[in-house]
């Protein structure tokens, strides 16, 4: 156990020392057995799960994916000969509870690491505690927070690309194939602002321009008053609406434009866990989406994707094998699978035995670069930047055709590169 409480001389520690000294001869014969038990004890991975709260739809699938990944790792012999155990705590998608859960992992459950957070505000709420507790904290968030340098050396994002990289990689396709005059419709909070800022910059670099930026307040339930703000010169609408009102958004956009609409490009975040055949989504036919990982099995589907779907129990349409209406968050949840495999590789490289080796684990992951397309990385090959603690990878652009998403373009890993904004390796542990 790693104790983070620094009490120079406390009553408890004094009593503990005295008691320990007195009892040592009696228990010494058993100590070697205890050490042996420790070496085969499970590696505990604290899973900070959005089981309730606004992230619950994602959380459900993050949990299934992580359980499947851990089952596979254990079938393959675990990590360094030890089984892996997921210790799951619900953070309610709340930053305060998130920080408490991180503390719980480190000081109550005695987890080796923390893992799995998706929503950025929970990451921001939890990361300072992870750093203070010196608990390696692997997030699956796609936020730019890690690579921006806002966090600390104990926070890493090796399983999914960040929004800045994703948006930058999309811009050339949008400019070359859909149009150069773009109107952005985005939620008026940090996630939407990231899209607004990063995409505006990226499309200008492609010779395009954002002709209007329409921010929608997060409490909005009807969108008709916003559509007249779309300039007539608009060639492409770029939308990243999220939340329960997204179906209304699409339906009202369809009613506004009728049969003659500009090109439409969106982020699948809007429709994760939503069946594309839901009433009202017919208007999306022919429109384009970014997908982190293609929801529908493609004609050139890799064996790695087949194995990944089978392990979690997902059909070729991205829905549960047992309930076709239970649509997954396929574009994001691979991050759990891949992050757990990165952790495995990192622990094996570092010869990880316990919390004392946490620094070695982080250094081992910082030294990683190439991650080949494999069963460990079914979404595609990746390149990890140890300085920024951020991974880079392929992005998929799909078009809705007859109610399913077909991949039209896959970006190169390099399309998402940008200048380093931080060097975490220069920070002390």
């Amino acid at each position, binding site marked *: 156990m790693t104790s983070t409480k620094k*009490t120079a001389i406390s009553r*408890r520690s004094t009593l503990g020392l005295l008691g320990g000294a007195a009892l040592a001869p009696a228990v010494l014969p058993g100590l070697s057995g205890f050490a042996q038990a420790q070496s085969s004890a499970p590696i505990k991975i604290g899973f900070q799960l959005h089981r*309730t709260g606004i992230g619950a739809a994602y959380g459900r699938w993050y949990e299934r994916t992580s359980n499947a990944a851990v089952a596979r790792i254990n079938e393959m012999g675990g990590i360094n000969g030890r089984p892996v155990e997921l210790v799951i705590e*619900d953070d309610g998608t709340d*930053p305060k*509870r998130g920080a*408490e859960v991180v503390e719980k992992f480190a000081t109550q459950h005695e987890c080796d690491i923390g893992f799995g957070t998706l929503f950025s*505000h929970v990451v921001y*709420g939890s990361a300072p505690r992870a750093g203070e507790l010196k608990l390696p904290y692997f997030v699956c968030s796609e936020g730019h927070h890690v690579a921006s340098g806002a966090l600390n050396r104990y926070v890493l994002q090796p399983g999914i690309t960040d929004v800045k990289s994703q948006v930058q990689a999309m811009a050339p396709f949008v400019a070359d194939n859909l149009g150069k005059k773009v109107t952005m419709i985005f939620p008026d*909070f940090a996630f939407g602002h990231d899209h607004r800022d990063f995409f505006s910059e990226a499309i200008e670099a492609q010779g395009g321009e954002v002709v209007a930026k329409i921010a929608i307040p997060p409490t909005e339930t009807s969108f008709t008053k916003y559509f007249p703000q779309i300039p007539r010169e608009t060639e492409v609408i770029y939308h990243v609406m999220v939340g329960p009102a997204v179906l209304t958004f699409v339906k009202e956009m369809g009613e506004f434009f009728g049969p003659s609409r500009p090109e439409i490009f969106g982020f699948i975040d809007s429709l994760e866990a939503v069946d594309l055949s839901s009433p009202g989504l017919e208007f999306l036919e022919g429109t384009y989406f970014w997908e982190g990982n293609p929801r529908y099995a493609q004609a050139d589907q890799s064996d790695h994707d087949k194995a990944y779907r089978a392990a979690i129990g997902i059909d070729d349409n991205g829905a549960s094998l047992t309930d076709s209406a239970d649509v997954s968050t396929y574009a994001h949840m691979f991050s759990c699978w891949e992050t757990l495999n990165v952790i495995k590789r990192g622990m094996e490289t570092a010869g990880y035995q316990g919390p004392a080796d946490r620094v070695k684990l982080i250094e081992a992951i910082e030294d990683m670069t190439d991650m080949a397309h494999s069963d460990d990385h079914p979404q595609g090959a990746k390149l990890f930047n140890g300085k920024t603690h951020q991974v880079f990878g392929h992005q998929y652009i799909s078009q809705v055709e007859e109610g399913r998403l077909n991949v039209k373009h896959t970006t190169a890993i390099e399309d998402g590169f940008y200048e380093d904004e931080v060097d975490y390796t220069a920070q002390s542990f």
Partner: protein
Amino acid sequence: MSDISRIHLLHAAMVVALVICWFVLPVYHAGNLARIMVFAIYAMGYNLLFGYTGLLSLGHALFFGAGMYGLGLAMHLGGVFAGPGILAGLITALVVSGVVGFLALRTSGVAFMIVTLMFAQAGYLTVLLFGTYTRGDEGFVLPQATRALMGIDLSDAQNRYFAALILFGIVLFFIGWLVRTPFGRCLVAIRENEERARMLGYDITRHKLIAVILSGTISGLSGAAYCLLFGSAQAAFAAVPYSIFPLLYVLLGGMGTTIGPFVGTLFMFYLIDWSGGNMMVAGVVLVALALFAPTGILGEIRRRFTPWLP
């Protein structure tokens, strides 16, 4: 022993017990206690208005958020040290509570609840609106190196615990003293019978306004302390649930008691923790408590055993 001596002894014993807790509790629970003390300050601020004055606000997250962002933005963007940061948090909460109190106290009863709720929602949306500076819902973190006061690293578990305890102790003794002053007695008189207090010649509006300002500033102190001690600020802390939490803490612990808010915060924290975040379990327990102990834990103890309880 007089009641006053008993009260002093109770408060002092509580602080001493919390000091001892650091040395005897496991690391996890000691860490929790630091959090609980910070939120108990929030609950004590709320209790001053709700428990002692009888004004039910549904918008205290605004004051908590004002303290949090007052300190957070001053340190994050202004680059000030923790000391001036705390002052910035307190001043922000004081000004916000003064303005809200001045306007909201033109109403009473249900209207007061709704007006405070609306102000808080406006505050929450303001944080989102100025996302360029506040980073909206995502929030921001205060670097560990900046979270020091007079050379003391407040990100260290022990320092954080005792910083929270000092603040908690100051607020506890302050409120314990305040409610026994003529001003505090008048607040209780307003709660019990506002018209009678008015007929006795008290300036009810002035007393209520001061109560809102004190309550809001103490709540702001809690928000600033959370940001400083735990290193982050998010809009979620200014949202509706964080207006409801102090109400629950106070109702559970015992409204109009000095240590009830702490007991309520402690109870609620572990209720959520032990139920694994399952709010259904928490909800059932809360309903049971409301049915069988409507005056809260401390209220029930006072009614049955210790009528002198402050």
